[in-house]
């Protein structure tokens, strides 16, 4: 049995674990990252499951990853390049389509085809959503203050948080009305929100997509408007709300982070599953792996979601009962599936005119919010949506490294898919049935699609749970609802990346500011570890 000692152990080599590890290694600490899979990356991976095709197996597009993190960790040196989307479309059963483009005025012209009023309302809508993004952006990098504490750090923190909502100068005159708007935005359903701006079904359906991706809420559920904001607050080079591909797939992000970590003396050890956190007198002192090795460190940082961290690898007896109860009650419901498809050529979508850049990004075929809600109704009954909302894209249209020239990789994200499938749960046969169902849905819009398929990988919430380690397959490692955001994430009293166990920290998307390939939880957690170790933090992020 090997015994290893380091300054810091990070459990899980996902993007947040690697971000935290890289920042800590840059600060001079000896960091080791233990990963259960044979590959690195968590849900930001690129794997070649069919020869010649690279898949972004889980997450598939990039916008939220904080540019300051890319800058501090010099990810470009290790091969990271973001490719902006050219546009997005929703295909319609009558043969028409609705498109958004990289260029704002082209988008306005496009919306106008469907509704003159909506085209102009879109300007107002963009402004309002952008304003919310401006408020939330500085909060992402902050450790949420504990509102019940009287420590100076928390009092100042609360003030700092409040400032971003109320300070007139900072935000160019956010008045009483806008504060009300913010509160409404955080609590409304996306349907109600969009109804205040738009009249046409297709405009609303296209925009509402971002509010349901990854969540177990429907478009009529209160709180779904915030999910839209969560997907909108990212950016590609100052273009807020824009999305892009990571060249070489999402694995390039974690590969680059690993490059940075290695350059600063850190190490990732794949195929080393942590099964137990070793504690002594209320302190975390090390971890034990499935292989039987023990690793000891001054600090342990878990990139696993809060349920896995405290209900699977930490002994319940070492934790306060109330904390364990709250962790058990943490909402983390799987609602999404995915197909990764190796295509022999470019599928035709007759709805989209040839050469239209709208087809370069995400494509959908849900025409009304009611359809979306119907898809959600199926999920509530424990079934996959008969008429699902899909977010599909063909990264190889923009990225020359995913497949050989002329060949294509298609990523299809599916909403909604239950973790607990009714009538006996998931098995291989039902998984394949689900895959065929999605292929059929897409084939309705693409006559040659089915013939081009060489291979596809079906991902249900069960695989995301078993393989990636996302409890119930929830892509955000916990619902993005107000009761579990900011000071409440993951549980009240523990929103500052620390845990009831001394020397043990959390850096996963279960913590503030939540999911998406953002890196902010990792960078924030690293900051707290460094503060506790009295080590100076440097970089653009802090």
């Amino acid at each position, binding site marked *: 049995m090997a015994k290893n000692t380091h300054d810091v152990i990070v459990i899980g080599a996902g993007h947040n674990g690697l971000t935290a590890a890289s920042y800590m290694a840059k600060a001079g600490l000896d960091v080791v990252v233990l990963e259960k899979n044979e590959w690195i990356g968590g849900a930001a991976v690129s794997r070649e499951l069919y020869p010649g095709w690279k898949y972004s197996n889980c997450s598939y597009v990039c916008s939220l990853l904080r540019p300051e993190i890319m*800058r501090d960790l010099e990810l*470009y040196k290790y091969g990271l390049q973001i*490719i902006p989307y050219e546009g997005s479309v929703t295909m319609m059963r009558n043969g028409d389509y609705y498109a958004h483009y990289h*260029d704002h005025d082209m988008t306005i012209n496009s919306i106008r085809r469907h509704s003159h009023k909506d085209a102009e309302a879109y300007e107002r809508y963009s402004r309002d959503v952008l304003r919310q993004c401006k408020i939330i952006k500085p909060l992402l990098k902050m450790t949420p203050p504990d509102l019940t504490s009287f420590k100076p750090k928390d009092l100042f923190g609360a003030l700092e948080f409040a400032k971003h909502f109320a300070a007139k100068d900072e935000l160019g005159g956010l008045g009483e009305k806008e504060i009300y708007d913010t509160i409404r935005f955080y609590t409304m359903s996306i349907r109600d929100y969009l109804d205040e701006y738009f009249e046409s079904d297709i405009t609303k359906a296209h925009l509402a997509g971002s509010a349901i991706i990854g969540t177990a809420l429907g478009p009529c559920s209160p709180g779904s408007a915030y999910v839209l904001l969560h997907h909108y607050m990212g950016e590609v080079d100052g273009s807020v709300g824009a999305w892009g591909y990571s060249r070489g797939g999402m694995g390039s992000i974690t590969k680059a982070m690993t490059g940075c970590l290695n350059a600063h003396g850190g190490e990732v050890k794949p195929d080393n599953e942590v099964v137990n956190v070793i504690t002594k007198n209320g302190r975390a002192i090390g971890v034990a792996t499935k292989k039987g090795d023990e690793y000891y460190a001054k600090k342990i940082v878990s990139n696993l979601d809060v349920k896995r961290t405290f209900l699977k690898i930490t002994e319940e007896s070492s934790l306060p009962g109330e904390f364990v109860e709250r962790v058990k009650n943490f909402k983390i419901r799987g609602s999404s599936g995915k197909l990764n498809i190796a295509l022999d050529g470019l599928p035709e979508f007759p709805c989209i005119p040839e050469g239209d850049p709208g087809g370069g990004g995400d494509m959908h075929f849900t025409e009304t919010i009611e359809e979306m809600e119907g898809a959600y109704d199926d999920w509530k009954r424990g079934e996959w949506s008969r008429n699902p909302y899909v977010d599909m894209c063909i990264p190889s249209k923009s990225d*020359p490294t995913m497949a*050989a020239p*002329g060949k294509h990789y298609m990523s299809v994200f599916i909403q909604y898919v239950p973790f607990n499938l009714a009538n006996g749960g998931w098995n291989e046969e039902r998984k394949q049935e689900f895959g065929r169902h999605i292929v059929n849905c897409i084939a309705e819009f693409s006559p040659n699609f089915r013939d081009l398929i060489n291979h596809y990988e079906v991902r249900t919430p069960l695989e995301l749970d078993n393989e990636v380690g996302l409890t119930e397959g929830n892509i955000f490692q916990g619902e993005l609802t107000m009761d579990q955001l900011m000071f409440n994430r993951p549980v009240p009293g523990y929103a500052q990346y620390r845990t009831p166990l001394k020397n043990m920290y959390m850096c996963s998307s279960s913590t503030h500011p939540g999911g998406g390939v953002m890196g902010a939880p990792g960078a924030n957690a690293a900051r707290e570890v460094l503060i506790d170790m009295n080590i100076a933090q440097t970089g653009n992020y802090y």
Partner: protein
Amino acid sequence: MNRDLRFTALKKTPFHSRTSLASRTNKYYNWNGFTVPTEYSTTELEYTAARNGTSVMDLTPMCKYMINGSDANRFVDYLVTRDLSQMEDNTVAYIIWCNEDGKVMDDGTIFKFSNTKFMLCCAVKIYNWLHDSAEGFDVSCEDATDTTAALAIQGPTSCSTLKNYGADDLELLKPFGMKQYNINGYDVLISRTGFTGDLGYELWTDPANAENMWDSIMEAGKELKIRPFGMHALEMTRIEAGFIQTNTDFMAAEDSLRPVRMRSPYEIGMGWLVHLNKESYFVGKRALKKEKETGNSERCLVGLDIDGDKPAVGSVIYNEKKEDIGIVTAAMWSPTMKRNVALASLKRPYGIKIKENIFAEIYHPEELEYKKIWAKCKVVKRQFFSPERRNKVPADLYE
């Protein structure tokens, strides 16, 4: 009433029928008397093509001169500061040239076919200067700007694109190498050169072949993320690569109204191109030797890494005492590096001996008001971005 206009406005390049068709935005500018697109669709996407796929740019307006004659070798060596006596045939070299006062006139590339045949490419017109300088040499200098069509084909997939076009074994061509091809029945010179700091090539041919060349390359790159690329995107890539631009980063000596604006090679980071130990005399040698010996260079051109994400366009640079120590000549947010970078001309010792505690005053426009940002800068290598693929032999192929 469309009468024949004797007066000619801007010239059209031999690619104009194609570039104007490719332009979705109809944004053009005047480059050396030619009409060329600043942007075809969106600058960001065009920029990305150069770092991700293949970007295509009409380079025809570049000044191009053919230098022929038995003294051609000796003449170019006399003209430029770099020692070209050992330059091999079928290679290209990056060069600068100065006036007799040792002040830089321009930078460019020299293509050597043989000891008696060269091509010079540059930004500023020097036909007159070439003729005046050629006094006493057995050379002829011919302006080939209008008679040579040129395309830049740059980006990670550019080699594959050009192989599809018909450039066999192109992957073996070394950086700064060049090779004559016959493709689709016409002669094309391909050099592994460019202004993007990435893998890339430049193609030179007779204007009669231009349209076929454009169409064939666009077809060849169809599956390789090819995209026409305008001046704005080029500006972004060249800053990332740390390449300087005459009359942007420094004033060309012959264009400077104010003599104090003239710069020596040492003042614009081009000292490495001055070979004082070159046996023969070259224009400006005496003055440059003196400057080197006395060390009285006043300026330097450096790379800056600037805090925050607001580009320091036109910013004045200060020391910690708020004394003016220089100016930003080019600035951008780099989409690839996610860094706020700039090229700046600083008064020595800033930039050479003093590299810390330097600040840029940035005026960031925010809805009709300016936000004044006092941003900390670090002096860094001017070549901000230089990926491994740039100089790899054989070049990367996408198959």
